[in-house]
């Protein structure tokens, strides 16, 4: 089973990289771009067939390592 994890900064946490991306896009002729927030995308292969169990384990992985819950949110998506 494959899982996709997105890790993003919580609202209100300054995101200097997102800000820089936004500025660059504005400068490149995309004035419609407002606030930009960037994050991480992590793909994992799991030796697990039970979706509920996989989800629970992934939740633990996110809390323990993949995300820093002081400043980051995460979302988990199971594929196939």
């Amino acid at each position, binding site marked *: 089973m494959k899982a996709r994890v997105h890790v993003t900064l919580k609202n209100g*946490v300054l995101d*200097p*990289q997102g800000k820089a991306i936004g500025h660059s896009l504005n400068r490149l002729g995309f004035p419609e771009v407002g606030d930009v927030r960037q994050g991480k995308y992590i793909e994992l292969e799991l030796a697990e067939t039970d979706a509920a169990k996989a989800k629970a384990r992934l939740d633990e992985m996110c809390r323990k*390592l993949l995300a*820093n819950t*002081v*400043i980051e949110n995460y979302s988990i998506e199971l594929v196939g």
Partner: protein
Amino acid sequence: MKTSVLVFPGSNREGDVAQAIELITGRKSNMVWHGDGDFEKTDLIVIPGGFSYGDYLRCGAMAAQSPVMTEVKKRAAQGVPVLAICNGFQIAAEAGLLPGVLMRNENLKFVCADVHLKVETSQSLFTNRYQAGQVIKVPVAHAEGNYFADTETLKRIEDRGQVAFRYCAPDGTVDGTGNPNGSIRNIAGVFNETKTVLGLMPHPENAVEPMFGGTDGKALFEGIVDALS
């Protein structure tokens, strides 16, 4: 004073801090490999600077999960002093030993430069050789030293006097000019609640000899020696 310096894959300032401690105490440090769940009895634990695990995922995140950190947390809870410098600060924060997190520098660039720090308190085993309000000059060298904590945490650590150092101008003014990384309220170093764990981004270990960066960092190590003897 018996010191243990932790070594993770990618640590790279462990030699600097061991060299500084040897210069000041005349004693070599015990270098502890990250995979060791236990290590000899020690008076001071140092988590040194570097790029543990390449700073991949988040600085300090993977090192914070290593076996040695479980032991460090146990000993810190028993009151063994922990000095966490730069990447060590990031690791200690990730491990929950210290409040807050270290984020990417505001200008997104690595910065290596001398900075001025205002010592917030002399009431700790790390800062007893300094005066409160004293301005010292030590270098920083990091890409992710931008201290952040939520409003509630900030209020708590300020109220309890857990801020150890703030970036400042050479004359001691705490404002944007002396802040190299965008840290909230210019925070450069924080204590845990009992002030037995200190995390700081600047490198006092690189300011202990006149010809090599000045001597303003020396008092930090001398203070620890005083407090522990």
